[in-house]
Every structure is written in structure tokens, then in C-alpha cells.
């Protein structure tokens, strides 16, 4: 192999190495050798959790940038987000650290914000919100597990007893053992009752087994429905009447709502009372008729005389009837 070929191969090999190094560099670092494109936003968090440089920034699930830098700034941690050029972030959009996997895979998720909000200027700070990480969730689950364990322990103690006091099952067992004779009798009675029901004996049995009763029951229900309809109609009529009364129409309405009618009624009642008082005192003709027996006696005598006169008229003929009546009467 001559010198020229050897030199060419070494040169090619060296260039291959440089090219591979460059490809690796571009792949793993995103070509930071050049000035990065896009613009930066600052997101402050209480903790960046597992977030690290190079992690993705996503909006509505779409990658729009990367975490350029993480740093401590006073009492908080800051992540510098490198947002792709041309992507506008609304000023009311919120950033949060989202867990993409259980083993330390995080990214910063941005919501869309409102459509009318102005876009954030490069270098400005985006609003953030705290989301629970896996540790917080596990702590909550642990606390929940402890509570559940305590509740189940209490339930178990109440069911199985605590060694000194019998539990629910022991009490049930004791109760069943003590009342086994009664329970047997009760079960026998139940069996007899269900047997009768099955055979169609008794009212309930007939109700269950006899279709006639069923039909009658259906008819009764129909009648009840009809009655209810009528009652509804009656109530509607009554409401109409009541409405008329309230509006002052008709005699009852006038009586209830017309002041003049009420005054007339009062006066009539007062007159009636005065008449009844006179009657009670025996004043006037009707009062005397009620209280004085002589009038009754005279009337009775007069009627007897009239009766005799009528009898005489029947016997003498019509010509002398007037004379007889006059004689009888006077």
C-alpha cells in the first residue's frame, strides 16, 4: 500500500469519527453549540421534582420546546423554558410539572389559556400551579391504607370479638343456639303458612291463586280511579263555585262579600229575633195561639160544630145546607 492510500484511509477514518461525534452531539444535546432558536420563558415552582434540562415542554400534548436550564432562585426553583419560535403562549396560560412515568420522567405541560389573552413576551414569567407528585400520592395512599386498616380492625373486632367480649358472630350463634326450639317452631309455622298460600287456602292464598279475586281487585281499582276522577271533577266544580263566591257573584257571594246584603241579613235576623221574642212572650195573635189554651179549645169546639153541620147537610140536601151551617155555627 502506498503512502497516498494510507493517508487517504486515515483521513477518511478521522473524518468519519468527526462526523459520528457531531451526530452524537446533535442527537443528545439538540445542537446547543449554536444559538438556540425560539424564546425563553421562566417558570417558578416550589420544587422541580424530577424535572431536568432537556425535558420536553408540551402544550395540549404537543411538544413546543425543551427545558433549557434549571436553577435555584431565592426560595424557589426556576425552570427556563425554551419555546419554539412561532409558538405563542397566552399570558393567562398555566405551567405545571407533569409526571409522564413512574420512574422520574417529567415534562412541563402548558394549558392553552384564553384565546383573547395577549401572548407572553420573551423572557417573561409564566404562571404555574402545583400538581401532586408520586411521593405525595403514595403518602396519601399510605394514610388511606392506615385508616382502612384501622376501620377493618374495628369491624373485625366487632364481628369476631376481642377475646373478652363476644363479637357479632358469637352473639348471633348464642342467640340461635338459645332460641333454636322457637326458631324451629317459627319455621314450621312459616312452612305451614306458605303451604296454605300455595294451596290457595285463606284470603291471602285465594288472592294469590284465584284469578277471580285478581279481576275483582282490578275492577275495584278501576272504580276507585273513576271515583277519584269524579272527585277531581267535584273539586274542580267546588273551586269554580268558590271562585264565583270570592268574586261576589251569586247569592252566596253577595251574602259573603256584599256589605249591603250583610246589613239586610242582620236586619232580617234582628226582626226574626224580635218576632220570636214576641211569640215567646205570647204577644200578638200567633203568640196567643201558642200560649193560650182557650183559643185551641174554641177552635176545637168550632171544628166539632162544623163537622156536625156537614153531617146535617148530607142528610137534608143542598137547599138547606146554608141554613144548617148557619145554625150550627151560630
Amino acid at each position, binding site marked *: 500500500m502506498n*503512502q497516498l492510500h*494510507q*493517508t487517504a*484511509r*486515515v483521513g477518511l*477514518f*478521522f473524518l*468519519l*469519527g*468527526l462526523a*459520528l*461525534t457531531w451526530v*452524537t*452531539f446533535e*442527537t*443528545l*444535546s439538540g445542537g446547543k453549540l449554536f444559538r438556540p432558536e425560539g424564546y425563553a420563558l421562566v417558570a417558578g415552582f416550589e420544587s422541580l421534582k424530577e424535572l431536568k*434540562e*432537556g*425535558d420536553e415542554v408540551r402544550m395540549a400534548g404537543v411538544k413546543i420546546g425543551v427545558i433549557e436550564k434549571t436553577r435555584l432562585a431565592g426560595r424557589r426553583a426556576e425552570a427556563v423554558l425554551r419555546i419554539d419560535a412561532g409558538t405563542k403562549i397566552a399570558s393567562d396560560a398555566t405551567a405545571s410539572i407533569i409526571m409522564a412515568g413512574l*420512574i422520574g*420522567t417529567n415534562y412541563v405541560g402548558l394549558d392553552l389559556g384564553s384565546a383573547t389573552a395577549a401572548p407572553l413576551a420573551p423572557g417573561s414569567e409564566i404562571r404555574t400551579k402545583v400538581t401532586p407528585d408520586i411521593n405525595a400520592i403514595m403518602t396519601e395512599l399510605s394514610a388511606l391504607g392506615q385508616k382502612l386498616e384501622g376501620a377493618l380492625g374495628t369491624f373485625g373486632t366487632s364481628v369476631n370479638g376481642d377475646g373478652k367480649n363476644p363479637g357479632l358472630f358469637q352473639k348471633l350463634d348464642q342467640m340461635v343456639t338459645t332460641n333454636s326450639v322457637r326458631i324451629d317452631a317459627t319455621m314450621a309455622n312459616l312452612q305451614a303458612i306458605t303451604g296454605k298460600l300455595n294451596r290457595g287456602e285463606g284470603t291471602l292464598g285465594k288472592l294469590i291463586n284465584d284469578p277471580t279475586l285478581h279481576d275483582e281487585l282490578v275492577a275495584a281499582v278501576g272504580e276507585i280511579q273513576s271515583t277519584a276522577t269524579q272527585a277531581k271533577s267535584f273539586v274542580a266544580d267546588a273551586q269554580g263555585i268558590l271562585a264565583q263566591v270570592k268574586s261576589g257573584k251569586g247569592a252566596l257571594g253577595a251574602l259573603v262579600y256584599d256589605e249591603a246584603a250583610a246589613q239586610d241579613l242582620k236586619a232580617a235576623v234582628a226582626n226574626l229575633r224580635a218576632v220570636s221574642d214576641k211569640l215567646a212572650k205570647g204577644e200578638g195573635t200567633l203568640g196567643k195561639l201558642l200560649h193560650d189554651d182557650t183559643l185551641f179549645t174554641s177552635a176545637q169546639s168550632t171544628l166539632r160544630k162544623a163537622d156536625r153541620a156537614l153531617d146535617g147537610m148530607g142528610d137534608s140536601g143542598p137547599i138547606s145546607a146554608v141554613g144548617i151551617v148557619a145554625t150550627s155555627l151560630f
Partner: protein
Amino acid sequence: MKAIITVFEGFGSTLQLLVQAASHLGSLPRQRARFIEQCYLIGYTTLPIVAILSFFIGSVLALQAGYSMQNFGAKQFIGSLVGLSMARELGPVMVAILLAGRVGSAITAELASMKVYQEVDALVTMNIPPARILVLPRLAAVLVMVPVLAIIADLVGWFGGAIVAKNVAFISIEPEAYFSVLRRYMKFQDVLNGLIKAETFGFVVVLVCCNIGLNTRGGPREIGAAVTRAVVASLILILVLDYFVTKALM
């Protein structure tokens, strides 16, 4: 005690050789032909074995990781495991070991032969420093070629792992997912650390092998002994340095 003195003597002579070679750094442009030749021997001819071994190391790594990690549902992270392991540790160490076995032994054998057959003495007699024409081109060549070998080893190992991850039934991870996880959990800094480690190991291997070769005394039998000694010393130094360089780069 004699062994300890020998070790210290070896360190001293190696450093002395390094200083001598560095003092002739200005002559490197005039030794372009030697430099190219050493680049060819150290880099180009070592590439096939580096590629083959890296492919299978990456494959085995993915296989073992998939077998272990399937028990706790983390096999989707095989990409990052293979990527980081190859870039930070296995790639550089494997390249250095291959250099020690293939290139280092050849360098030691060549220089020991020259020393035994008094070619080195002839150079010295002609006022040509051996460190200038025998050591400096090799050191320069290894500095240029080892990063290339290391990056190829990394990439081939990653692809080996990806092929195994896709085609082995109990792993079955698509290459997209494999490389996505690899990218997510790796930075170029990891690859750079590996290249620095490989550079360090390669430089030490060549320097030690040159020193042992140039300090060979005796007859032809000593040439074989020198080669063995050079390879063993190189392997030990690689693994010892690995810890300290890794710690320093963390």
C-alpha cells in the same frame, strides 16, 4: 522490595520518556509520514475488531438488562442503560484493552526488537533521539485515533443493543422507544466523559508499551517477555486509572 523498586523505576522512566517526547513536539509536522502510518496502524486497522466487539457487548448488555429488568417492569429503560454503560464505561475501557492487546503489544515487540538488535543504539549514535521518531508519532496518533474508535464503539454498541431489544422475544422494544429513552436519559457530556477516558487510557497504554519496549535488554527471548509485561501493565493501569478518571469526571 525489588518488585516495588521496579515499579517505581518503570513510572520514572515512563515519565522521562514522556518529557523527552514532549520536548520534540515541534518536530511532529516533519514526521507526517510516520504520524499517518501510526494513525493507520492504531486506528484504521483496529476498527474491525472494535466494531465487532462493541456490537456484541452492546447486544449482551441489552440481553442481560432485559432479562434482569423484566422482573420489575423496567425493561423499557434498556436504551438508557445500554447507552450510558457503553458511553461512560464499556466503550472506552474496551477500546483501551483492545489497544493494549493489539497495538500495545505490537509497539512493544517492534521497539524491543529494535532495542535488542541495537537499532535504537544506532539511532542514538546518529544523534536521533528515539523518543522523537519512535514515540512521539505514536503518542500523537493515539491521541487522534482513540476518540474516533471510542465514538464508533459507542454507536455500534448502541445499535447492537437496539437490535437485540427489538428481536429478542422477552424484550421486544421497538428501536424508536429504545433510542427515545436513550436520548432522554443521556447527555453529550456522558459521551464526552467516555472519550476523555478513552483518550487517557490509550495515551497511557502507548506510552507504557513504548517505554517497556525501549527498555528491553537481553536477547530475543526478552522481546516476548517485554510484550507480556507491557500488556499486563497496560491492563492493570487501565483498570486502576478507570476508577480515578471516572471519579474525577463525575
